[in-house]
């Protein structure tokens, strides 16, 4: 059972009042009824008269030269309307979110298994697939570069990208490298200050976002020579920015509207089918819909970076951290995507939510011929968290100390200095979160219902060989885009009277991917303008960029933009009152908008909002920026890199069948600080979902890549937690307001995805005594087979 514990309420600005369905309430999703009726239009549900189906031919090889492509047979198939290769691209042939290194369609080589080579449009999806199978591509197969460390070395096997070919930041196969050095770093002199040292290496497998709604959209050619794209994405303006040069069209002719998005978790931050559908639509002059199959989805988006992490922790006998040294090696795959930013996170958050006097962390991402990796919930912090939290348990064991006590003793708090030199200038209740999960009651011992045994009824155990363990972990994640990125959002708010009642409309380009942004924006308008009837306009590129729905940033940044736009609308309302009724500035400073009325602080109604609006709408568009961050110094990693930090702690209880190597997570309890819960139900939903994904990484989720080939691109073989794998979750939410954030809120989406993984593994270690240095933990790791 979930329960919430209200903490300190955030101080609201004086001009806002609590409103029904406003900030702080579990307001209902505006899209909820459509979703339960099956009437909500996801990207894959779109339909247009006369529409064609697009499909993609992908490389069967991870590394090969393309000698020839022959489309003759494919074009000849009845029902086929277009077969396009790189030669048919009117504009630039490369794109990329941060580094323009990825071909829209392969040109003279392929660099990963599943890379798009050609695209087809046909009148039936099966016709399109059959045509794609008839495209003859002649490859000269090359040995793939499969190992990040090897790739880093000398490029003995060549380079994934030829040196100087793209704007790589370092020579060779390095996408990006970042060091963070604090205090004296890690030297022999520093090591001598520690009584206890633990050194271990850890490994994190390649996790996938595995959102349920496949990549999908519909491109409709327009009469002006442009194209309208209805698409499931995380950031329409970033798509548009990358698409325009490829299509050779100005932004006003490449218009995007958000279609229903069936989950994202980072996997839709890079372009997938967007530009392919538009190319086919512009070429055929007909609407083209592309919907990836599950297999294609696994090839069509970036994954979480697999990582190797070598950590060394030194502490005094009384459990004070002296130093942390770490080398984090991330496999970026064939193209850069957001690898550089992932490296920045892994490096800057690499020691976790702890105060450490001496630090030397180095993180780097490398090009290989493995699948490209980029954004996924937790973004570089997940991999580091598994390693540093495993280390904290090792250290606690070496010191003979309780692992929660050790963590609390070193916990970050407000005023602490991070290894980057950044001072934590907001609450950081790390120790409090740990104590809260520790103090929750433990679940009862296993009962005799065989459905509750590890592996369920299908397996042979009746409880023999089943042992229970408990583990803890805590993590830190940044909120928003960091390191000097201009992280802004735009919102347009319109207020008018309809039928004598004030109504408001909010318009942003923020992608609703399931997290509930659409709900939150309406809540903010209700609170700020005191209007009950609020509608959200569909998100599109007809309003300025909202940035990405990622990095736990949308409630903060787009929420901030909606709030700022509302403040401008409110100021315009008061201005009308000053003109019409002669209100003085003094009077205005004491007015609030509530329940459709302008009310003085003593509760006296000064005017009806509808009268004041009197047929003339007020519309304001505002851009919101959080305070600026700075790039990390390349040599030392010093700098104010992150605008806000967010924390979550977990306790996991597991039963392990040591004979069969099966794990049952019995309970996963979490405590997280939300600053202020703008929508408590949505906050809980985020913590539950993030925890389940962390559990997945701990015990089952991995894209298996062998010789750079993906072996399990299906839900048969890539396992995500089912309702049987996911235990009851007790969640405790703190509200310690961040004085720098709108309403004091703190981004919540990602933190829970960090600490669930090490907590589950710690519990398995506690149950079995096995070292377990790699996730996901597989049965063979538990049985030694």
């Amino acid at each position, binding site marked *: 059972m979930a329960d919430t514990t209200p903490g300190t309420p955030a101080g609201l600005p004086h001009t806002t009042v609590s409103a029904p369905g406003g900030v702080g309430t579990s307001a209902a999703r505006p899209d909820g009824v459509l979703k*339960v009726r*099956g009437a909500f239009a996801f990207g894959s549900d779109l339909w247009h008269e006369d529409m064609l189906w697009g499909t993609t031919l992908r490389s069967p090889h991870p590394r090969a030269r393309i000698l020839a492509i022959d489309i003759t047979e494919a074009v000849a198939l009845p029902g086929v309307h277009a077969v396009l290769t790189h030669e048919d691209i009117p504009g630039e042939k490369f794109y990329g979110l941060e580094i323009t290194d990825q071909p829209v369609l392969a040109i003279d080589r392929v660099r990963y298994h599943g890379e798009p080579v050609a695209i087809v449009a046909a009148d039936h999806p099966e016709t399109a697939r059959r045509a794609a199978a008839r495209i003859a591509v002649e490859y000269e197969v090359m040995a793939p570069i499969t190992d990040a460390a090897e790739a880093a070395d000398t490029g003995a096997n060549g380079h994934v990208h030829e040196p100087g070919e793209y704007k790589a930041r370092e020579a060779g196969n390095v996408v990006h490298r970042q060091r963070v050095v604090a205090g004296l770093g890690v030297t022999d002199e520093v090591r001598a200050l520690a009584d206890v040292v633990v050194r271990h290496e850890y490994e994190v497998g390649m996790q996938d976002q595995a959102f*349920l709604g496949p990549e999908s959209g519909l491109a409709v050619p327009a009469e002006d020579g442009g194209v309208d794209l209805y698409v499931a994405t995380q950031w329409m303006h970033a798509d548009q920015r990358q698409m325009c040069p490829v299509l050779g069209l100005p932004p006003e002719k490449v218009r995007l509207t958000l279609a229903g998005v*069936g989950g994202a978790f980072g996997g839709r931050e890079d372009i997938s089918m967007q530009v392919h559908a538009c190319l086919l639509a512009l070429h055929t002059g007909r609407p083209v819909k592309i919907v990836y199959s599950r297999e294609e989805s696994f090839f069509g988006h970036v994954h979480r970076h697999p990582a190797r992490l070598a950590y060394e922790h030194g502490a005094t006998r009384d459990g004070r951290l002296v130093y942390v040294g770490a080398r984090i090696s991330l496999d970026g795959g064939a193209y850069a995507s957001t690898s550089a930013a992932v490296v920045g996170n892994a490096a800057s958050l690499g020691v976790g939510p702890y105060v450490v006097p001496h630090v030397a962390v180095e993180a780097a991402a490398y090009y290989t011929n493995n699948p490209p990796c980029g954004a996924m919930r937790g973004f570089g912090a997940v991999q580091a968290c598994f390693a540093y939290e495993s280390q904290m348990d090792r250290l606690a064991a070496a010191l003979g100390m309780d692992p929660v006590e050790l963590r609390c003793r070193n916990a970050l708090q407000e005023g602490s200095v991070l290894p980057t030199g950044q001072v934590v200038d907001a609450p950081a209740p790390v120790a409090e979160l740990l104590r809260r999960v520790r103090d929750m009651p433990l679940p009862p011992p296993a009962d005799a219902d065989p459905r*509750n045994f590890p592996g369920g009824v299908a397996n042979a155990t009746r409880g023999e060989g089943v042992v229970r363990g408990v583990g803890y972990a805590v993590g830190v994640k940044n909120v928003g885009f960091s390191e000097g990125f201009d992280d802004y959002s735009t919102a347009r708010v319109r207020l008018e009277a309809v039928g004598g009642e004030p109504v408001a409309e909010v318009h942003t380009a923020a992608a609703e991917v399931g997290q509930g942004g659409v709900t939150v924006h309406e809540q903010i308008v209700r609170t700020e303008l005191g209007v009950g009837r609020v509608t959200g306009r569909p998100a599109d590129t007809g309003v300025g960029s909202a940035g990405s729905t990622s990095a736990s940033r949308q409630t903060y940044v787009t929420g901030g933009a909606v709030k700022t736009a509302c403040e401008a609308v409110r100021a315009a309302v008061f201005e009308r009152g000053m003109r019409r009724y002669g209100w003085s500035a003094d009077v205005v400073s004491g007015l609030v908008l509530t329940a459709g009325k302008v009310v003085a602080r003593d509760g006296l109604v000064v005017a009806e909002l509808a009268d004041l609006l009197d047929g003339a709408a007020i519309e304001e568009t505002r851009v919101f920026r959080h305070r600026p961050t700075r790039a990390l110094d390349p040599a030392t990693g010093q700098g104010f890199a992150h605008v806000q930090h967010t924390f979550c702690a977990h306790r996991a209880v597991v039963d392990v069948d040591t004979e069969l190597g099966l794990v049952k997570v019995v309970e996963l309890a979490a405590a997280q600080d939300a600053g202020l819960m703008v929508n408590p139900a949505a906050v809980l939903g985020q913590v539950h*979902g993030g925890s389940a994904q962390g559990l997945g990484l701990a015990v089952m989720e991995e894209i298996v890549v062998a010789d750079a080939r993906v072996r399990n691109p*299906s839900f048969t073989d890539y396992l995500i937690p089912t*309702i049987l794998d*996911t235990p009851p979750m007790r969640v405790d939410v703190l509200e310690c307001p961040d004085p720098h954030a709108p309403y004091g809120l703190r981004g919540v989406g990602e933190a829970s995805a960090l600490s669930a993984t090490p907590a589950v593994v710690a519990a398995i270690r506690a149950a079995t005594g096995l070292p377990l240095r790699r996730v996901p933990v597989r049965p063979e790791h538990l049985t030694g087979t």
Partner: protein
Amino acid sequence: MRVTFTVNGRRTEADDVWEGESLLYVLRERLGLPGSKNACEQGECGSCTVYLDGATVCACLVAAGQAQGRDVRTVEGLAAGERLAPVQQAFLDAGAVQCGFCTPGLLVQAHALLAATPRPSDADIREALSGNLCRCTGYEKIMDAVRLAAGRRAGAETDPAGAEGAS
């Protein structure tokens, strides 16, 4: 080929169906009923769960021709006009809907569970819904929703659309 069957109580024909098409494809692309979702199309995720002659199946695994002469009920057929089925209302009230892509399949499966087992235990719910993947919610609120729907049923509410497949 032509497939004639009953969908949500209405006799329906689909023309020019290619033999390889699934019931899911026919529902979504030929009949304009996209409520059943296409998340894996190999029977692993449960997003396309529908009733076929009163039993729940993954529509992606049913060849369109197999539906000939039979009775299909989709998520679009759970509500009675404007009135949501209790399980739909419970999903809304419990906050069990996030991205919503798994929701239609879960609703049909939960609807079938409650018809067969009006007071399911937590273990019953987990077992019944174990073929339906959800990536957003962590299932906690889905559990809450099914418990809520069951509790409301126990409070003498009846499903206006009927628990079994409409015909």
